């Protein structure tokens, strides 16, 4: 499924991960009466030093996937192989040791930092927890702050004294403290203004080059993902609908959803923006507790609505399309996938 370059090793391999959240009845018994199918059979690989962008709109399951990968949420089924070990079956103690290598940066830099700790301590905390804060601890924290572009002399300040961009840098410094191999970045720049966002993106870029980190970059913003990711997986209603290198995916998106997503993002270029071809989806996201049969996108698919014959539609309704190579240059889960140049 993945084209891992020769010589690079696969660090993380996610296989058929499913995550359902139970829906319970009211009252005393609270029987399970259904399930929100947040993630349905998701598979992908991440190589050492690589960035995989996981994109999709709200409710597509991208953040849940990221949390399952880190074992912050137990998977309903499937495997998450990190360096060959299945994280879904690992014991607590082993997982705790592995947490050194798997870190996360959250979206909201206002909610994810302890307001009662000075920044020094926020960054030192993971070191202390893992028993790594020794004589040179202070020096380590200073160096981490410098690395992410913060002034070490501000270490005694509290999180509220920093701007949003600076707080996100604190979050990154904390995640880097344990020298992780894999960073899960969950919408790390979505809460920031553009002029600040660019600085954080450049920082992530440099950290990756210098430290050889792998990133699982979760975002709703395709422009940001195109900028930072080597490969991209587009999610819709719990499934990956299309995946490929960033270059491939933007040169020839083949799934109607990817096409709609790309054509919906406004370009900051008046002439281009006004002359663009639009592929619009209709309606709203169906409930993940009761997804449509067959292809999950069919209820909003412009191709289903406008181009397909009745016979062709029957196939969309009855047979869920698999995420496989269909002669489009990269895997896509649409029976009638067709590359289109949109940019």
């Amino acid at each position, binding site marked *: 499924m993945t084209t891992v370059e020769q010589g690079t090793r696969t660090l993380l391999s996610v296989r058929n991960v499913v995550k359902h959240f139970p829906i319970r009845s009211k009252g005393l018994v609270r029987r399970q009466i259904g399930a929100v199918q947040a993630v349905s059979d998701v598979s992908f690989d991440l190589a050492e030093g690589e960035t995989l962008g996981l994109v999709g*709109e709200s409710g597509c399951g991208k953040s849940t996937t990221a949390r399952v990968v880190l074992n912050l949420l137990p998977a309903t089924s499937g495997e998450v192989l990190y360096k060959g070990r299945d994280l879904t079956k690992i014991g607590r103690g082993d997982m705790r040791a592995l947490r050194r290598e798997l870190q996360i940066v959250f979206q909201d830099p206002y909610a994810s930092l302890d307001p009662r700790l000075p920044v020094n301590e926020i960054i030192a905390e993971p070191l202390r927890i893992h028993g790594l804060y020794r004589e040179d601890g202070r020096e380590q924290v200073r160096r981490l702050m410098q690395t992410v572009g913060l002034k070490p002399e501000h270490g005694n300040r509290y999180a509220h004294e920093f701007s949003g*961009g600076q707080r996100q840098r604190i979050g990154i410094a904390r995640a880097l403290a344990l*020298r992780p191999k894999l960073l899960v970045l969950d919408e790390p720049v979505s809460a920031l203004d*553009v002029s600040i966002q660019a600085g954080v993106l450049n*920082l992530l870029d440099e950290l990756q080059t210098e430290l050889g980190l792998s990133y699982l970059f979760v975002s709703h913003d395709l422009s940001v993902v195109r900028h*930072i990711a080597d490969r991209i997986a587009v999610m819709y209603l719990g499934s990956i609908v299309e995946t490929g290198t960033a270059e491939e995916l933007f040169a020839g998106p083949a799934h109607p959803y990817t096409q709609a997503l790309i054509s919906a993002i406004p370009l*900051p270029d*008046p002439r281009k923006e006004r002359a663009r071809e639009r592929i619009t989806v209709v309606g709203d996201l169906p409930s993940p507790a009761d997804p449509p049969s067959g292809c999950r996108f069919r209820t909003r698919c412009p191709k289903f609505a406008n181009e397909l014959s009745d016979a062709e539609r029957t196939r969309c309704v009855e047979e869920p399309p698999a995420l496989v190579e269909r002669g489009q240059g990269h895997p896509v889960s649409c029976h009638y996938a067709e590359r289109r140049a949109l940019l």
Partner: protein
Amino acid sequence: MTERASEKFTASEEIDLSPAPGARGAKGDVVLEVSGLDVTFPSADGPVRAVRGVDYRLHRGEVLGIVGESGSGKSVTSMAVMRLLPGTAQVKGSVRFDGKDLLTLSEAEMTRIRGSRIAMIFQDPMTSLNPVYTVGAQIAEAVRAHHDVSRQVAMDRAVELLDRVRIPNAKDRANSYPHELSGGMRQRVVIAIAMANDPDVIIADEPTTALDVTVQAQILEALAAAQDVTGAAMVLITHDLGVIAGQADRVMVMYAGKPVEVGTAEEVFYTPRMPYTLGLLGSLPRLDRPSERLTPIPGSPPSVVNMPPGCPFGPRCPKHTERCDESEPELRATTGAGHLAACHYAETLEGQEAADVFDSEVADHEALAGLAAAEGAGTGRDGEARA
């Protein structure tokens, strides 16, 4: 096009809901003129000058995009125009609309204008809709607030408006409560309410910010349709330069409570004359180009409490000189008559890209190299331990 659509719209009505004949001018007339607008809030740290002298003219049928980052004063400007700020806000300047200064009107007179002649669309549709009334009833209420018509006529009009903003099964949907609708649907209802009285001006404050991109595209279409049908002029406030590029005829870029660049969309996007605008454009990752280095603007926006003299962008600006600290540069004409910028060195930006002006370095390379070295040593040990 706009005129015709507007005629068609009112002609199809049983009752004429458009304003008195003659109130409407021709396309290109100034409908709203804001001059010297200044808003100050008291605070424990001293007065907060949220808006420091905003001037603009809105012409009939045009879309004026106001763009700026958080705290630039773009929303406060519009709240001041609508007189929706709390009583503690000190508002100076004038807002001319239909021959009157809105800032001097009585509350009763202002209520007659709000929602009928000037409508507003907010970011979060859940807070602008009342959760205990059906959406149909809320649109009908907006109609009845300004027109003496029966409930039934108002309700029919509500259904028609829902249909216009492309809500499927408008008749049934009119009986839904806001919580039964998705975010995109709710925002359509808010747009329908804004259209209800055929306003002259629609102010849309971040109308698509809370929405997913595919829904945003639908809402932008609905907004454009609303503007087309009512013939209203629109002020579109957003932080999204892409939305501005697609929708706005003219653009006003705000920074620290002041407009720092004004021009047509093409002027501002293709030949920015204020380093801040250039910096914003250079900070944007682009969907339509392969990845290149971004050029962030260093530092962060100034606090608007006790601002020092001089250009507020000075501390972040690569063109900064001593002259910039002496006095704040006025908004002045640059290359084109209508293309204004508040920078002493506007002309020097000619032919320059963001990467020529701004530095793309952010990380401390020495520290990074140190960390990488320590990392190497660390992994070495780890490797041994594991082996």
